[in-house]
Structure formats: C-alpha cells, structure tokens
C-alpha cells in the first residue's frame, strides 16, 4: 500500500527559530514527486515546496528546505526563521504516475504553532 506518515501531529516553534517537520512514505515506484502543502486557517491548500525523486539535490524555496533521503524514504521540511504566518497544518504528499494518469497521496498532517 502506498502511504505517507507524519509522526508529529503537532509541533511548536518560537518565532525566528528553526523547526523540522518529518515525513516518511512507502512506495515501490522509482519515479515520483514529493510535496509539502501548507493549509492555514483559511483552509486553502498552498504548495510550499516540491522535490523530484530523481534529483539528489535537496529543494530549497526561500526559508523552506527539505532533507530528502530516498533510500530511507524520508522527506522532512525545515522552516528557518519561523514567522507567525507559518502557523498552519502542513501536509506531506507524493505523486506517482500510474496507467491512468497520476495520483496523489497525502499524509495526516502536522499542525505547526508559531509562538511570539
């Protein structure tokens, strides 16, 4: 079964500090993409960062970076210099290509609180 696990249901971080959200996944596919989505209280899902599995270099997007360990099937998100606006639910997801097109699998989410 294809699954995504986020072992931290809740995390908190002080403003301006760094926090790492963990994600592990299980797939037998070799070609896939990994994503972190942010869902603020407004409930809209917003893409934070994306990683192609064939790329060894970790993706970085401003204050957001990932630690992608393909052999361990781990894909953690690091948020540097945390801001109050980073408070949200964060979902890890991966996308595979199957015979019918594409499919996304989401993890259960981690609720991040940012403390002033």
């Amino acid at each position: 079964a294809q699954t995504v696990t986020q072992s931290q249901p809740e995390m908190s971080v002080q403003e301006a500090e760094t926090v790492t959200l963990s994600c592990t996944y299980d797939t037998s596919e070799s070609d896939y993409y990994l994503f972190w989505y942010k869902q603020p209280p407004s409930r809209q899902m917003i893409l934070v960062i994306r990683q192609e599995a064939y790329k060894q270099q970790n993706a970085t997007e401003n204050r957001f970076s990932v630690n992608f360990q393909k052999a361990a099937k781990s894909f953690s998100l690091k948020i540097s210099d945390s801001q109050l606006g980073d408070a949200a639910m964060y979902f890890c997801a991966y996308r595979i290509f199957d015979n019918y097109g594409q499919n996304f699998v989401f993890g259960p989410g981690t609720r991040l609180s940012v403390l002033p």
Partner: protein
Amino acid sequence: EPEVTQTPSHQVTQMGQEVILRCVPISNHLYFYWYRQILGQKVEFLVSFYNNEISEKSEIFDDQFSVERPDGSNFTLKIRSTKLEDSAMYFCASITGGPTDTQYFGPGTRLTVL
C-alpha cells in the same frame, strides 16, 4: 496568477438531499481531482478525471458520488443522497499533466449535512 475556484464556499443541506459542488479548474489544465477533508483529519483522494472520464477513484467514491465536466470549464461533484458523514471540506484540484506539474487546489467548499 491563474487559480482554481470553487462555489459555494459553504453549503448546508439536509440529510438525504442532493448537492452539487462546483469547481472551475485552471483553463489549460487536463487532469482534475476531488478531495475531501473531514474536520481535523487528513486530505483524502476521491476521484481523478481526465479526457472526460474518471481515471481513478477511491473506495470513498461510491455510487452516491458522481463527477461531470458539463461545459468544458466547470467540473462538478454531485452527492445524490447526502449522509451526516459527508460533512467535510471538499477540495477541487487541477494540473496540466506534465511531469513537473504541481496540483493547484481550490479554496474548498465546506459541506455541512444536518
């Protein structure tokens, strides 16, 4: 920047009634998706749609659900006879289908079944 839109933002209905949730995907996108999120729980895949037909569906997407792209722009999710457990946020998403694409999500419709 183009975006996925959804209407209504909030729908309240009585159990057993039919509801139609509407989505307008980004215009050049080819794959369309519906997801649901029960309050406090994870985002769950319902169905994907490509080339005017369902390409994949989850076990949640039973005979009470149907999808349609009636006019080439709207993408609808119909629930024929709503149940209390259908109360959730329903998200529409779309993607062009290329290998480096990312899903763009709509803002969601909150469905409340009384």
